[in-house]
């Protein structure tokens, strides 16, 4: 009898007798006998002690970012997470509760989701938010589908400065409903190692376009030039979709202020460790008039029979359990606990704390850039305003630079040659508030010695 089943043999016999059978096998007579009870090729179960020892050892074979200088971002960012968050989300009442289908016994989760929606709206400047999607990548796919449904068009433009992983997920999501995704160049790699930017997309924007997807700041760390973009799109009935970074929203204006119709964001990094990239949590917000096409769950406030305020899952007529094949999406279970962590993070930081996190990240990254620009052979490839991530051009391939850094105990940056052979010498570096100056100085020293 394994540790998680409490039934004793005597109880089992009593239960079988109450059912009116004499063996458990009799309960399985509907199963084809020749396949019943397969001889699984799996080892015997481990005790708790063995499990702990095995997995602790395995975890120690990984290189823990907290123990090594690291400058890798490229979509996944390490921020400081106040201790209160882990403690609060580990409470059994949050951790082990079900989706809040029965509101009278789920007001805790429901109010927390309402607060998440409020915070996502506050950060992005949008009217409404849902309860979360899986991550920013799938959120991008959902946003494209939603824009196509809203405009009854099938053509989606996405800038090539959007995180390549999000673009890959978008391509997968678009393949089913035959959405035509067109990647629009937004930067150029010049032979001298500098980068150029493209800001005029007017030749691409016409009345066949459902939406244009941009990322702010973009994958290269730059701020896209957003002025006029939403006007150009709305003049042909198309929607501006912005993938926003929640930390940068502490210091730059929100997408709602420059005409975004749908906003997606990755909420994981502001609430938990990087976790090898999962679980994540997608922020998903939009304009009020788009609500009926929104994917995912939404919580609303209402009252009970005595006028007492309470919260419920609402607007469910968009969802799969009611609308089946006509639903806006199939999404149901998403990332509630991670959304809760992020909600608590923003409550803990408040406006001043978030601005500090953004500003320190920016200051440290700019310090790193100024140091690197003095190292012979390296140039900072910034042709636009940027915040806490930037590409540099290295004297040798970025892959070799990263290998040398790793040999020196440093996790380097992201080798942009993996995305574009023209960028083989480009390394994308990032700093956040957790990057100490000593790590930055060490990186610069090692780069100079290569």
């Amino acid at each position, binding site marked *: 009898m394994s540790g998680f089943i409490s039934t004793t043999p005597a109880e089992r016999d009593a239960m079988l007798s109450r059912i009116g059978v004499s063996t458990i096998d009799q309960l399985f007579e*509907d199963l084809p006998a020749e396949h019943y009870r397969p001889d699984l090729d799996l080892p015997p179960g481990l005790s708790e002690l063995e499990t702990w020892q095995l997995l602790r050892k395995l975890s120690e074979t990984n290189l823990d970012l907290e123990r090594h200088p690291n400058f890798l971002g490229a979509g996944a960012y390490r921020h400081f997470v106040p201790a209160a968050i882990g403690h609060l989300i580990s409470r059994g009442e949050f951790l082990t509760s079900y989706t809040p289908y029965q509101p009278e016994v789920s007001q805790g989760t429901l109010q927390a989701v309402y607060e998440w929606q409020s915070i996502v709206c506050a950060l992005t400047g949008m009217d409404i938010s849902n309860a979360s999607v899986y991550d920013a990548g799938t959120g991008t796919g959902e946003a494209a589908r939603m824009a196509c449904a809203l405009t009854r068009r099938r053509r989606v433009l996405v800038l090539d400065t959007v995180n390549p992983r999000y673009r890959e997920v978008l391509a997968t999501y678009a393949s089913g409903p035959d959405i035509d995704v067109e990647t629009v160049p937004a930067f150029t790699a010049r032979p001298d190692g500098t980068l150029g930017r493209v800001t005029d997309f007017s030749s691409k924007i016409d009345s066949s376009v459902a939406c244009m997807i941009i990322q702010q700041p973009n994958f290269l760390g730059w701020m896209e030039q957003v002025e006029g973009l939403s006007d150009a799109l709305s003049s042909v009935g198309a929607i501006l979709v912005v993938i926003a970074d929640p930390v940068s*929203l502490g210091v730059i204006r929100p997408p709602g202020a420059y005409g975004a119709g749908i906003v997606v964001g990755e909420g994981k990094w502001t609430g938990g460790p*990087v976790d090898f990239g999962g679980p994540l949590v997608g922020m998903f917000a939009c304009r009020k008039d788009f609500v009926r096409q929104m994917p995912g769950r939404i919580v609303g406030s209402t009252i*009970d029979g005595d006028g007492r305020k309470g919260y419920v899952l609402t607007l469910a007529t968009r969802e799969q359990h009611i609308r089946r094949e006509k639903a806006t999406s199939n999404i149901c279970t998403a990332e509630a606990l*991670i959304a809760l962590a992020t909600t608590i993070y923003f409550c*803990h930081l408040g406006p001043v704390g978030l601005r500090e996190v953004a500003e320190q990240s920016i200051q440290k990254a700019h310090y790193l850039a100024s140091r690197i620009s003095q190292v012979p052979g390296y140039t900072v490839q910034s042709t636009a305003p940027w915040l806490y991530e930037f590409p540099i051009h290295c004297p040798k391939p970025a892959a070799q630079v990263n290998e040398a850094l790793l040999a020196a105990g440093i996790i380097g940056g992201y080798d942009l040659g993996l995305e574009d052979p023209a960028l083989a010498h480009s390394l994308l570096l990032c700093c956040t508030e957790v990057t100490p100056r000593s790590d930055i100085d060490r990186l610069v020293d090692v780069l100079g010695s290569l």
Partner: protein
Amino acid sequence: MTTTEHADAAVHDGASLRPSSGHSIFAGRQEGIPVVFDKSVKGRRAGKLPALDVPEIDLDEIIPQGERRHALPLPELSELDVVRHFTRLSKRNYSIESEFYPLGSCTMKYNPKIDENVAALPGFRNLHPLQPVATVQGALHVLHGIQSQLAEITGLPGVSTQPVAGAHGELTGILMVRAAHLKQGRMRRKVLIPDSAHGTNPATAAMAGYESITIGHDRVTGELDFEDFKSKLDDDCAAVMITLPNTLGLFERRIEEICRLAHEVGCFVYCDGANLNALVGQIRPGDLGVDLLHVNLHKTFAVPHGGGGPGGGAICVAASLEPFLPAPLVVQATDGSYAYDADRPDSIGRVHSYQGNFNAVLRSYAYILQLGKEGLGELGANAVLNANYMRALLADDFTFYVDRICMHEFVLDGRPFKEFGIRTLDIAKRLIDHGYHPPTIYFPLIAPEAIMIEPTETESKETMDAFASALIAVANEARSTPSVVQNAPHMTPVGRLDEVRAARQPDLRWQAPVS
């Protein structure tokens, strides 16, 4: 009625109300907790960062003037404010750690604590998803390990843990079906789905560009209508999506024949793994002819549900579909090291930004290691034993939608209570007053007034005895004092909420009061 009168009415009539755990959600009506924004005090804050250790540049030199943000309307709170607020919210929740969840089709089992400790190991948590593979061999060992575990448990050799939820696994699977047909130059248009299926099945088919065709069910056996299936199956069908056991908690006895007929016309068989808990260690869907199956790791393999995720929706497929799995896959080289295989030309592509819900997958990996071969056999066996025991306890007081030995769950028929003016919703809400989260209700859609109960293997005999007594007590109340049942719940912080108002006058976020 006032709160006190409600409570009086609740206890009236000999109902042995059992706020079992002394939990505050069963202590009667309570004042609402203010929205966190309303607790904000200007200038208050929690925590601080170290002083900046690099030379400071004027931000105006970095961010163009028009792009600076001026107002940031987040709440301002102390850490104690934050901790109290969310602790208080947590106390308005029902959860598996203090109570029993008889939720059919949701498999709310106990989540072992060791898995939380494993998932908290810094060597797993502080890993960047794009770190060099040589520095994450332990994490890749876990991903490769669970691929092998799930392949063995399901009998389907190709596994990806990139999908992060059941519906996400479904979408991944049906997109793979689409890619496989396209690869052979076939553009099929239809997906067959039984009328008992979860709503995600038709929603998924639509997302993948397919038309859903509904197959009926046999009212006597509770299984799919085999003749209807045969008449609708043709070479325009890309897949048939079957839930096994089905949502009435019954095994589809003709599953092998269904698979054979589907395969004869080149149609794939997708198995919705939401109910896999019944089958673990008892039978492998792959051995029956199923081509694809998703595994809800948060149901079957004990990832805590978190109030709605994170979960895991691993997709498991037959060898013929392996080339279409999401890229990259974790593979093991001959020297024992692990790597990503991204060079998969037939892959449907990426379905998640990185490698799925790694930290959730890690919990399932640890759980399966602990169960081992014997434990997995006991899992399914006890899940089915418990469901049938519960069913036997209720047999004298309730009717079943289909009266047969069940698998891991069963469906009660709420219609007999209509003559007392009682609906299934009323029974569900009254159960709350007795200290229990209601079962799944009004699902499957084919069973009117359905009450669907799944105890899971981790619940004890006395828990099931107590729950059955409570449900029988509610049935008696429904017959004797229906008004108490119709107005339930009486013991919760709020009463039944006005869902029509919520939808007609949407209030979906906090708004600053107009001053």
